[in-house]
């Protein structure tokens, strides 16, 4: 009298079997046999990661080019505290028990993370523009101060719950179907914002003086990027944790910079490369589980896979990879430019 529960089809497959099972599942999904409801945890993780790759493809490229990655890092730290405070402070008012922990209602999370992101950006701009402090000093001082205030408030409110490592490292294995909602929403938001404002963003990033001379206000677009970063951080908060989402922002653009120079293909590559990375990660972590019975943190594995991919690209990239240069020098072959 087995209850009608479905075993996870990926239960015992290793690296390559994972792909075969995945392809049958995808076929089933396309032909409609498998509904969206009974997606299995591995597939949900895959979809969430793909969503993240998609939304951070646009965002990452412009963050790196506008040299605002450190601001994104600051946003991530303060958002972490915004979330924890929202849960601890606001939960009694909205009479939903923090510990009962129905999915932390996304409204509160989004709202609180947006306020913290705007506050942080405003303070950083204030210190940089009006108080004329060096840029990285102003970033550093603002976000560490807010983080310290957050930690004090957290310990004030509850002696028992410490800042779970889960908030920092995220827990990709605990994802659920309705996590897909937030990721889908954020990817659509990112996609629409960047396709509409693509021209504005390129001109503001490339030549801020020229843009302000033709009437585009540069600081408006800075704030917009910061808002989009905070929204993406929320989407990534449950899956990869607020700190490792930085990897999504930084690694793909750096990887694709090694391969091409055209801005549009950099954006496409910054989606394709991490997507490949995510596929490899999910199957690798499944592989470790089945073959070595060792459960490892998939988000940590994801970052390591990105790191290794970037190292490979550093060595082999056609433009000026270490290995290709070595080849070009020693062997008399012409490296295609």
């Amino acid at each position, binding site marked *: 009298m087995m209850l009608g529960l479905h075993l996870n089809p990926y239960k*015992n497959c290793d690296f390559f079997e994972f792909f*075969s099972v995945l*392809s049958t599942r995808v076929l089933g999904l396309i032909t409609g046999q498998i509904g969206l409801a009974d997606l299995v945890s591995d597939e949900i993780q895959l979809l969430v990661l793909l969503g993240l790759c998609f939304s951070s493809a646009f965002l990452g490229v412009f963050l790196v080019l506008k040299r605002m990655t450190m601001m994104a890092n600051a946003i991530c730290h303060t958002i972490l505290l915004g979330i924890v405070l929202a849960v601890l402070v606001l939960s009694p008012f909205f009479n939903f028990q923090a510990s009962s922990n*129905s999915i932390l209602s996304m409204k509160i999370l989004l709202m609180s993370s947006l306020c913290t992101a705007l506050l942080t950006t405003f303070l950083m701009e204030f210190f940089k523009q009006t108080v004329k402090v060096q840029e990285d000093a102003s970033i550093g001082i603002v976000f560490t101060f807010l983080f310290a205030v957050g930690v004090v408030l957290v310990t004030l409110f509850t*002696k*028992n719950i410490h800042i779970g*490592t889960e908030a920092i490292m995220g827990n990709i*294995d605990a994802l659920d179907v309705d996590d897909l909602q937030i990721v889908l929403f954020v990817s659509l938001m990112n996609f629409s914002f960047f396709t509409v404002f693509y021209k504005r963003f390129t001109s503001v990033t490339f030549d801020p003086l020229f843009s302000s001379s033709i009437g585009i206000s540069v600081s408006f677009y800075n704030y917009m990027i910061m808002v989009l970063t905070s929204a993406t951080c929320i989407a990534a908060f449950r899956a990869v944790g607020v700190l490792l989402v930085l990897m999504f922002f930084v690694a793909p653009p750096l990887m694709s910079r090694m391969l091409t120079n055209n801005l549009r*293909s950099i954006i496409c590559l910054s989606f394709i490369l991490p997507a490949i990375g995510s596929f490899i990660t999910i199957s690798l972590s499944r592989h470790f589980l089945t073959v070595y019975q060792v459960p490892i943190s998939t988000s940590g594995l994801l970052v390591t896979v990105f790191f290794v991919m970037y190292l490979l690209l550093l060595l082999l990239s056609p433009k000026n990879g270490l290995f290709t240069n070595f080849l070009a020098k020693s062997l008399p072959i012409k490296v295609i430019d």
Partner: protein
Amino acid sequence: MVFLGMNMFQIVKNLLLSVLIFITLGCSRESRADRERSESSTKKITVLSTIAMIDDIVARIGKDRINSNCLISGEIDPHSYELVKGDDEKISSADVVFFNGLNLEHGASLCYKLQKHKRSIALGDYIYEKYPDYILKTDNSLDPHIWMDISLWVNIIDPITQQLSQIDPEGSAFYQTNAAELKKTMLVAHDRVFNHLQAVSESKRYLVTSHDAFGYFTRSYLATEEERLKGTWKKRFAAPEGLAPDGQLSVKDIQNIIDHLLKYNISVVFAESNVSQDSLKKIVSSSKEKKHNVNFSSKVLYGDAMGSYNDPVNSYLEMIEKNASSLINEWQK
């Protein structure tokens, strides 16, 4: 119209190529059948319990009719346990999940999965409804360590047997007999431990550990009768860290513990198997300076974890007795 750096024809070509690869992979023979065989899929019902203490009780009731497995094993701290890669299958493949409740497992992901499971029973909350005044409250949150008091922990047997017999009606008689027998042994063990600990002189029975796990233990075994009635037994137990270990500590907590030690001139402090001993080390070194020699106990107590790496405990009752014995020979020294 050049779009995204490649013209449309190229894009369509690449997409077709990748879909083809997917499909060919799909039809390959299922080669993991041999791994499947390793898992016998007989008609046994699978029961999952979050902490080892529940798992031990469930195994004693179901014996070989069920295969019970445990989520948090070894020395991992249940308070902040977060789901790892394989746990998702364990939970979804279990027919019934028993967890302690009372906000013990407050890791966000674990809590959420437990809620969503179709048949998950919070044993602590069950006891809370039946005997509300038994459950302790420390600074407006419930103390989840109810397994430290055998007389309380015995009440979880009824809900377990009830659930098992619901799922597996034929075996319900078998479960009832095992349950009754287990209750008897637990109550006998409870009295034995009680008498042993009461034998120690009252002035010695003060317990200081690193985190607030031994509230129930003190109330039932260390406190005298009228202390239990009047509720003044709390003075017999103190711990620097709150309910969840390694919260942000402040100097004030350490100061309070040292005053407590001086007040009741407690000379021995008990470390726990799976909690960091920094705070206790600090307390010991500072109180030594204040000319009140306090030292660590030779044996380690088992608060949240049943048994440790090099000294495994294979049953719940044995864990309580081990704690009691290490307390007794420390105090009688």
